[in-house]
């Protein structure tokens, strides 16, 4: 019976089936091509999706991880090429739209970014068919410490993309490096570059896997199995690292040797070999850094255990916020609901800063000088509007004295025209006449008659008859003359 069962459903069939299910979202994408907006139909979404995975995986673990902008930059020439093949003019707006659709599909935006869920059937030990569900993500938005968000592939997406769904990352890297070595030896340099790049991706994955364990430990000791699983992974990793470092040194040596004997004219091959050398050196550096992490790993665990003895931990089971919290509160009498919200509210908004009054701050604020004017503005010299003498000072003192004397001799209620005629008759210079006119004008329409020598009013519509001045004639009165 048992034998027939394994005939009916071999054990590793389920695993292979699950591997296959991971490709279904891409299949969905492809089927969407035909029903998409007419102006987007020239794009092959699966090809584009793979290009996206390629760039996000390539950037994984690097200082500058891929964000939407990076992906857009990489995808633009591909989209343009697809436009050209369909004789369509490229359009940035259309490219952006397509990119959003692709990212949305890979992130499962349509289902609120939940994991993809694929159901499948397999036979259990008793030969009964059973339904199962497989949940996985392909691409996700992750917070980056610098403040923005970056696009990150899920582990499943990395495996899917690297066509290594069934392999351990360690083995895969060893295989790839063996391929690099053989390609170098056989002079297939361009392919060697490609393989070296793949090997580098594997080294990033490997490093991330180990660092993830350490990070998880820092965050929550209970999440990782430190009794059996983690020591095993760490020990294997150390052995793996030592082997990899030896192989990578070998590749570096071989590449250097190649470069030495290669003729300078063979620039293309030289460049390829140099690239292999750089990529391998990068792997080597990453592995050396990882080695340090591994050596210190045990301490991370002990530290984390000590630290998390105090850390708050969500009590299980986790609530469905709508059904287990919001609904019961809505059903409660407002007195009870109010009490819960009063206590719970603060947890959802986080700490606020209590404001303390600072006397020093208040005084400083009150005494602070006016803000300086911005530099761009042209500085305007302040005009002292009460300085009536400013214009008079243009004239020499003797001229001013002569003018004042003539003005003082004028009769009350004299006209300006008459005064000027009289002054001119007495032989006054034009400068003296100007000063007289100025003094009279100062007395015209001023609010502060005390400061003016005379007071002047206009005579309705009578023009000034004088060869030197023009304007309205003014009537000079004695008021203010005392000043």
């Amino acid at each position, binding site marked *: 019976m048992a034998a027939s069962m394994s005939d009916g459903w071999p054990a590793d069939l389920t695993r292979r089936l699950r591997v296959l299910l991971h490709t279904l979202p891409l299949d969905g994408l492809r089927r969407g091509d035909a029903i998409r907006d007419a102006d987007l139909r020239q794009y092959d979404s699966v090809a584009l999706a793979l290009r996206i995975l390629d760039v996000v995986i390539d950037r994984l673990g690097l200082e500058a991880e891929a964000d939407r902008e990076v992906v857009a930059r990489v995808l633009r020439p591909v989209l343009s090429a697809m436009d050209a093949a369909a004789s369509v003019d490229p359009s940035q707006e259309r490219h952006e739209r397509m990119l959003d659709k692709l990212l949305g599909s890979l992130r499962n935006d349509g289902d609120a970014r939940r994991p993809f869920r694929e159901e499948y059937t397999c036979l259990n030990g008793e030969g009964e068919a059973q339904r199962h569900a497989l949940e996985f993500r392909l691409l996700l*938005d992750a*917070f980056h*410490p610098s403040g923005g968000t970056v696009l990150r592939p899920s582990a499943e997406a990395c495996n899917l993309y690297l066509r290594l769904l069934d392999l351990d990352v360690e083995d895969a890297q060893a295989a790839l490096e063996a391929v690099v070595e053989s390609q170098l030896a056989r002079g297939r340099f361009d392919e060697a570059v490609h393989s070296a790049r793949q090997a580098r991706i594997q080294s990033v994955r490997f490093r991330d896997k180990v660092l993830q364990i350490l990070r998880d430990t820092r*965050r929550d000791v209970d999440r990782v199995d430190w009794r059996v699983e983690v020591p095993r992974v760490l020990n294997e990793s150390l052995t793996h690292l030592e082997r990899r470092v030896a192989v990578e040194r070998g590749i570096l040596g071989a590449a250097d040797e190649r470069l030495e004997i290669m003729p300078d004219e063979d620039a293309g091959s030289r460049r390829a070999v140099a690239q292999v050398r750089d990529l391998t050196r990068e792997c080597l550096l990453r592995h050396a850094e990882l080695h340090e992490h591994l050596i210190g790993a045990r301490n991370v665990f002990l530290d984390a255990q000590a630290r998390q003895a105090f850390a708050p931990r969500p*009590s299980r*089971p986790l609530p469905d916020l709508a059904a287990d919290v919001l609904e019961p*509160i809505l059903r409660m009498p*407002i007195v009870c609901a109010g009490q819960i919200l009063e206590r719970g509210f603060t947890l*959802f908004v986080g700490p606020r800063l209590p404001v303390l009054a600072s006397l020093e701050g208040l005084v400083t604020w009150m005494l602070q000088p006016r803000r300086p004017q911005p530099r761009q503005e042209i500085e305007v010299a302040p005009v002292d509007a009460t300085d009536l003498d400013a214009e008079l000072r243009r004239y020499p003192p003797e001229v001013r004295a002569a003018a004042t004397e003539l003005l003082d001799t004028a009769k009350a209620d004299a006209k300006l025209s008459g005064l000027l005629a009289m002054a001119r008759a007495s032989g006054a210079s034009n400068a003296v006449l100007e000063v007289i006119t100025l003094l009279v004008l100062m007395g015209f329409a001023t609010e502060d008659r005390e400061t003016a020598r005379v007071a002047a009013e206009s005579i309705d519509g009578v023009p000034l008859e004088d060869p030197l001045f023009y304007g309205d004639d003014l009537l000079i009165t004695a008021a203010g003359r005392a000043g």
Partner: protein
Amino acid sequence: MTTTRDPAWNAGRLVQWALRPLARPAQEAEYRELVERYFDDGTFRTTVRELTDGLGLQVLDVSEHGVVLAPQDDSVFGLKPADFRSGSSKVDDRLLDGLAQIAIAATVFPRARDLDEDPDIVRAPVTVDEVEAQLRQLCERLSEEARGRDPNSEDERRGLIEAWRVYMQRLDTIETRDSRKAMRATRRIIEYSLDRLREFGCFTQVRRGAEIAWQPTRRYQVMVQQLAGTAIFQLVRETLNTPSAASSGD
């Protein structure tokens, strides 16, 4: 500079940084140095924890993204519904503000297991309409269930009417004049809540197609996932287990 000072001083500096929701270790050398020290130095961690505990705060998460703190019960750092709006607010307004907070969290985390996800994964942005619909549909269902069981004036006086009625009243009173305005009144409450959460570094505003959406920040995700979600659940359970409060007024 930070190494030469007393650990207590450095712990104080770290708490200061933690209280600035927009500061990031990636951009502030001192903050980064202090977070690293927190990881590396056990004594320093204890000092920080003692200090925050004394201040009425608890450390929810420390990472390269920074420190996330939460106020403890009766902490001076705790923001009460009464302080949420400038000026005085009525009991009903405070209740609605509280309900809006829960509805926002429930929209960001629609399933229980969402609370268990890696807080580094960016959750989908939410819109005011989505939050409003969540709250309104629940209230409408409860209203349907309670048909024909209207509370008397004595119940109202003693605060025994159910919380959903307050939400529906807010909808009803305005609906009598203009049905379109009704939505606007409840929407405004939610929009105000989201806007205030933005000031606290819990959300950012993003465009989703033609509409405005609100993107939860990592800080908000950590706060709800690590503490608020389960803590409020605990409060609800405690209240339901208290005999006098368990009934919904009948």
